């Protein structure tokens, strides 16, 4: 007959295991069901290119200092400093070994929308899947097709340089449990189709909130502060508030916002600076109707 002590130990072990199991169930990589990526047909490469520019893929994945056509070679290798360590941007070119040329649509789509890598592992949210999660399966399919149409690069990017505990991928599951959310960032009642299009572009592929929304110590967005700006996560300086209540751009008209995204010039002909230079150049590839939708949405986002 087992002693009381043994029973207690056994109970603790069972409860502990159940707890761990529960924690694992809550934080395990969670890909989309297979059917999510089925029957999408051949990709529309022209739309894929639009998503490519809206998503700013080249901003991180092109080689450091790339310009012109080189922006379409997704060789990776840039370093992205952060409060959690330095991330090294991977190769997502069409190369079958070094890039994503050998991936299936489901593997690509789960990376984009669930932060799950090709081996079923968690990806770090420095890759902004928290935003890309909003992409429609069609847009993901078109983008995947477009990326595979771009040149291959055999460059092998170094691994991330992260201190403990951020170097433990399993911990990303906890971050996702706390902060991963593919619902709307702001509830806009009676939004026009134009504003909804802007919301899709800004909250989804554009991933504007990744820099323009302040974060807490664990890297989650502060509640009620969507797009209200904050310290620059990549280093010195501040990222401006871009809501309707912004001191920086609240007074701009929608036309002036469109013109800024198109040309890089503010209404008083100051010019864009820092990381926004690349972002603006990417966004400028979008059709004017999309730029107008972005402006209409930004005007609809409440200020602090």
């Amino acid at each position, binding site marked *: 007959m087992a002693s009381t002590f043994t029973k207690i130990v056994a109970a603790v072990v069972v409860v502990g295991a159940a707890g761990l199991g529960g924690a694992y169930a809550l934080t395990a990589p969670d890909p989309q069901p297979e059917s999510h990526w089925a029957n999408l047909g051949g990709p529309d490469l022209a739309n894929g290119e639009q998503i490519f520019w809206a998503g700013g893929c080249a901003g991180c994945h092109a080689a450091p200092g790339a310009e012109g056509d080189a922006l379409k070679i997704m060789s990776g290798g840039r370093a992205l400093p952060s409060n959690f360590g330095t991330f090294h941007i991977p190769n997502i070119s069409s190369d079958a070994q070094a890039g994503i040329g050998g991936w299936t649509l489901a593997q690509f789509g789960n990376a984009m929308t669930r932060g799950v890598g090709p081996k079923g592992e968690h990806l770090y949210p420095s890759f902004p899947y928290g935003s890309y999660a909003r992409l429609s399966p069609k847009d993901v399919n078109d983008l995947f097709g477009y990326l595979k149409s771009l040149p291959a690069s055999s460059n092998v990017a170094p691994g991330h340089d992260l201190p403990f505990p951020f170097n433990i991928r399993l911990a990303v599951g906890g971050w996702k449990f706390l902060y991963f959310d593919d619902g709307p960032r702001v509830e806009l009642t009676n939004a026009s189709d134009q504003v909804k299009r802007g919301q899709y572009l800004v909250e989804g592929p554009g991933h504007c909130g990744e820099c323009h929304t302040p974060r807490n110590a664990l890297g989650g967005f502060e509640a009620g502060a969507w797009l209200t700006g904050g310290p620059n996560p990549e280093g010195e*300086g*501040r990222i401006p508030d871009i809501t309707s209540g912004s001191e920086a751009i609240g007074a701009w008209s929608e036309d002036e916002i469109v013109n800024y995204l198109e040309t890089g010039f503010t209404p008083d002909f100051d010019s864009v600076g*820092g990381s926004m230079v690349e972002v603006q150049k990417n966004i400028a590839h979008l059709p004017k109707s999309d730029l107008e939708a972005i402006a209409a949405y930004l005007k609809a986002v409440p200020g602090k």
Partner: protein
Amino acid sequence: MYIKTLAATAVALCLGFGSAFAAEPQVERQAGMKAIGASMGALAAIAKEQKPFDAEAVKTALTTISASAKAFPDQFPVGSETGHDTEASPKIWENPSDFRAKALKLGADADAVLAAAPTDVAGVMNAMQTLGAECGQCHQTYRLKR
């Protein structure tokens, strides 16, 4: 005679104050940046046909851009890294030769446009695209937003 002396003294004092104020490199370079911005605005008004084509206005704008850009290399001396709300990035002082080259390129390109001065709206638009891109190229690395 007394009045004249007084006036001269007043003028000298004003100039003295003026130059003392302008001698702060942070303030000087900010004025230069703003002058370029205003010149780009003048060119844009013509490019967008909000104002009629005006060869003199185009010339003035290009001359201002050239002169302001060529002054930049001397307006970021060691010791002026901070203060006066400067948005200058520390990278300017880490890589002064590249910064200088970029500023002088803008000056040279403005001179080149001036030498074959635009004669119509399309020409002004081309000039804006050439010179405007250089604003962003330099600011990407060398300007911090505060």
